[in-house]
């Protein structure tokens, strides 16, 4: 009798363990799956909410209209128009790089304007704070639209000089030219070849680098540009934009 029950229990144990294994397996699988997705959802949502919260805290107001008028070459009405447009796109009063890229990309839907916008942003953001306030915006525009030739050329030099070391070397220039060609997009006539930017850069250096030392300094740049009539003429193109 004992032996019989013993074997009885033994067989039970075997099938029991089998079923238990199956059941536990199922439970584990379902549980981990559900928990996994839960966790992911939660972290993602948390990040997003924090991000928006941070952005909304920052709010900046520009200095008074009179002060800005004194500092720049714009009239009061022009400043008003410019500020209204600025505030419409950026209600918080500052532009961060992503918004800047977005706005600039809207003007060039064919290609990818993000690289050139990045360089522009760095030039506008003279204080390197990561965001452009209205004053920075206005100062740059004032230089570009109403400034003297020297000021404009200095601004352009700062644009090309990516690492701000006072010299433009071939790599920086290649980056800039490639960024400009990126804005053209894929569908151009004649079709863009891979070495077109390089050729362009070589031509540029041919013209600008007076002492053939491989870099262009500010004085070389201004001198060479003043010699070129086309460039001089084109600098005056956007006088009456506002």
């Amino acid at each position, binding site marked *: 009798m004992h032996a019989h029950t013993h074997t009885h229990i033994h067989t*039970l144990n075997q099938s029991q363990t089998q079923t238990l294994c199956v059941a536990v397996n199922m439970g584990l699988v379902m549980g981990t799956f559900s928990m996994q997705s839960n966790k992911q959802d939660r972290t993602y949502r948390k990040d997003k909410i924090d991000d928006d919260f941070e952005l909304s805290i920052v709010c900046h107001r520009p200095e008074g209209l009179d002060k800005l008028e004194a500092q720049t070459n714009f009239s009061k009405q022009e400043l008003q128009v410019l500020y209204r*447009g600025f505030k419409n796109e950026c209600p918080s009063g500052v532009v961060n790089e992503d918004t800047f890229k977005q706005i600039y990309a809207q003007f060039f839907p064919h290609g990818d304007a993000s690289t050139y916008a990045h360089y*522009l942003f760095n030039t506008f953001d003279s204080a390197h704070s990561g965001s452009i306030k209205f004053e920075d915006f206005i100062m740059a*525009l004032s230089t570009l639209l109403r400034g003297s030739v020297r000021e404009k050329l200095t601004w352009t030099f700062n644009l090309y000089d990516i690492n701000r070391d006072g010299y433009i070397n071939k790599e920086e220039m290649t980056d800039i*030219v490639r960024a400009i060609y990126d804005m053209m997009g894929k569908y151009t006539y004649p079709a863009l070849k891979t070495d077109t930017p390089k050729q362009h850069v070589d031509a540029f250096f041919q013209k600008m680098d007076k002492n053939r030392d491989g870099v262009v300094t500010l004085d070389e740049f201004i001198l060479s540009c003043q010699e070129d009539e086309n460039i001089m003429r084109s600098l005056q193109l956007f006088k009456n934009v506002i």
Partner: protein
Amino acid sequence: MAAGVAAWLPFARAAAIGWMPVASAPMPTPPPDNRRKQDGLILLNVSGQKFQTWRNTLERYPDTLLGSTEREFFFHEETNEYFFDRDPDIFRYILNFYRTGKLHYPRQECISAYDEELAFFGIIPEIIGDCCYEEYKDRRRENQERIQDDEDSENQNDMVPPDMTFRETMWRAFENPHTSTMALVFYYVTGFFIAVSVMANVVETVPCGTLPNRVKQVSCGERYALAFFCLDTACVMIFTVEYLLRLMAAPSRWNFIKSVMSVIDVVAIMPYYIGLVMTDNEDVSGAFVTLRVFRVFRIFKFSRHSAGLRILGYTLKSCASELGFLLFSLTMAIIIFATVMFYAEKGSSASKFTSIPAAFWYTIVTMTTLGYGDMVPKTIVGKIVGSVCSLSGVLVIALPVPVIVSNFSRIYHQSQRADKRRAQKKTKLGRIAARKSGGTNAYLQYKSNEVTASKAAGQALVCKANPMFDTHHNHLLHCLEKTTNHEFVDEQTFETSLLEVSMAKHPPHSPSLSSGSSSQGLSCCSRRNKRKSFNVPNSNMTGGHRNSIQELSTIHIRERPITNSRSSLNAKFEETVPLNCKQPYITAAIITLPMPPVTRPEDDGSASSPDYSQANIVRVSAL
């Protein structure tokens, strides 16, 4: 491009200076920069509410009304503003579109009102922002469905083309039994025979007492075999005839054959014919018995008679994916639990769970919480698994059911709404018609006033009674009267005049004067009825139905109690010129679409017959 970004164009152009030194070719000349006047404020007056905005804001979108020169048409010089006689609440959203570049749809506004405003201001609704686009599309779709329903019901009830062939009439009668009495009769007869056939099938199997030389009970079908066979034959005959008629009348025979109802019809009558063909062959009699099962499909023919059944079928069809999911998840669960159960109960002695498929039955019975008890687990593990099985069964079945239920509810309510709207529309149109008839009575009133007033030289009386608009309107109707040389009258006058005319023309038809007058009255009415029903080529075959006929003017609107058809605004009207005997003809002012007068019964005697002999003239009605 977003509107606000347009304000950054100066910046983009300025930034272009960065390209200048790198440029390989000279720059093009800039476009002439006409010195724009300073940006000014524009005042927009929308029904009294004043809105103001910069001119540049509006000009961001030059292809809309406000952004283009079209707004100059609304310029009001005295107040130096632009005046729009539109809804100011909706205008808010439109103006915000100019300001922010995003168009929003307010939930509380009516979708058609909003659409109208958008159309007026030249804004396409596709630019509604993502936040509101979903809601807008949903509301729009609902509205379209409602309009489509109304159109469909209208088409069904009214738009009977006059030149329908017999085939088309028959098809229409089959599809919509309310179109004529014949169709209704047919509908009820087939319904009755379906019921009879199904009942016969059921009663056939009831035990009917014993035969004298037998011990066991025989079913009624065996006892009264001949009677049931005759009944079955009769039913199948009716069904066959019906099917053939439908097939003949169907506009697209192939489509009809493919349709579900046709398949059901065929399946319902095939067993009988197959049974006829293979009479006493022993081998196939077993199969024949199986075929008799298909006779029960006749009950599905009832779905032509019941809208609810159709909705149920349609719901199941539209919930096919949910049903499929339910089935799939159930199958998965059954297999899992059956396997576990089998291995759990393998050890126990005299276990009913002899194999996994045998365990399927237990799992199904447990998951649907039936619990017959013919198979029960004996081991502890088996009992645990069994309880988990029944719990999970409840969950798995409860999940897709609400989806199916909500689908059914939506479709059912939609059909309810359609019917309710149809009923509401009838009463609504009736009320509008009553209001309109009030208006026409006003003209008659005015005329009678004028007659009495001119007699009493009280012209001022009349003028005082009617406001300016009514005066002009009445004058217009008077002009029409003079043009057509007929007059507007009311119902009583017309009937009495008809009576007079008929009496004058048909004295020999009446046996006695009194009864003659009554019979004349009756015949007059009936003739009028017949004339009505005859003249209207769109008339339904049931007499006395009022239908819409083309009318020049809704002069005389009659509201009779209407059974099936809708009281329409353009109810028929009959006018006649009773008074002026100088008129050479009496025209019942009905527009007659071309109809041969030969079918007209006893109207020949009337003076109007010579007119009607020229049957192809569209007679000018309204006198």
